């Protein structure tokens, strides 16, 4: 081994700008910020709910407005990104073996998208939207 190995200088804070693949990786990782924000919003909603109708209605009123709409829209975009990136790797996480062969990835991914669509419809129906 060389006594002075060459170490390529890599920025600790900006390395993911060096390659589109790294940027795509980081775009998947940062979805967690938005999932966490949604969870905290739900905790706040429960707290407001436990305080009675007047407090809860003012919470709903506080949701309206351009900034909270923009924030919720951002959460929606990253939540969808988390979903699609999560489902797209399911053939690696849940390979299905049929005898000697493996089930083609598109069926495993497709099954997840179908269940995702049905779940979304079921929640929208339960929530009284559709």
């Amino acid at each position: 081994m060389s006594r002075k190995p060459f170490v390529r200088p890599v920025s600790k804070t900006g390395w993911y700008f060096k390659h589109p693949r790294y940027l795509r990786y980081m775009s998947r990782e940062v979805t967690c910020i938005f999932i966490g924000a949604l969870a905290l919003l739900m905790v706040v909603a429960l707290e407001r709910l436990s305080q009675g109708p007047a407090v809860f209605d003012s919470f709903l009123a506080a949701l309206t407005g351009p900034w909270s709409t923009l924030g919720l829209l951002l959460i929606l975009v990253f939540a969808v990104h988390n979903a699609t990136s999560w489902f797209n790797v399911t053939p690696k996480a849940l390979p299905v073996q049929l005898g000697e062969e493996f089930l083609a990835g598109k069926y495993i991914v497709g099954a997840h998208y179908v269940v995702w669509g049905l779940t979304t419809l079921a929640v929208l129906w339960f929530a009284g939207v559709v």
Partner: protein
Amino acid sequence: MAKSNKPIFWSLFAAGGTLAAFLAPVLVLLFLLAALGHVPGILNYANLHAFAAHWLGKLALLGVIALFLWHAAHRLRCTLHDFGLRQDAMVAIVVYGVASVGTVLTVLYLIRI
């Protein structure tokens, strides 16, 4: 072999990520509709209170909120490392701390409803 607590946090991350993949988009869509002035039926006080008052509703809300929190906490711990923050022990205490407090508060609020 050395014992590790990694499987616990990783399984919470994976379970929360899967649940978030299926449910987070539609849940935030409900809030977004409310923000746009079309409050979905479930977000009316009486309906949501009735849902959260039932033990099955409590279980669903706790499961979703807690798993989302622990998913986000574990992934954020790794992501902060990727952003160049190398104080992992401190980061772990903060992110898992927030997830713990959020979980406990959720239980308290659900008991109160």
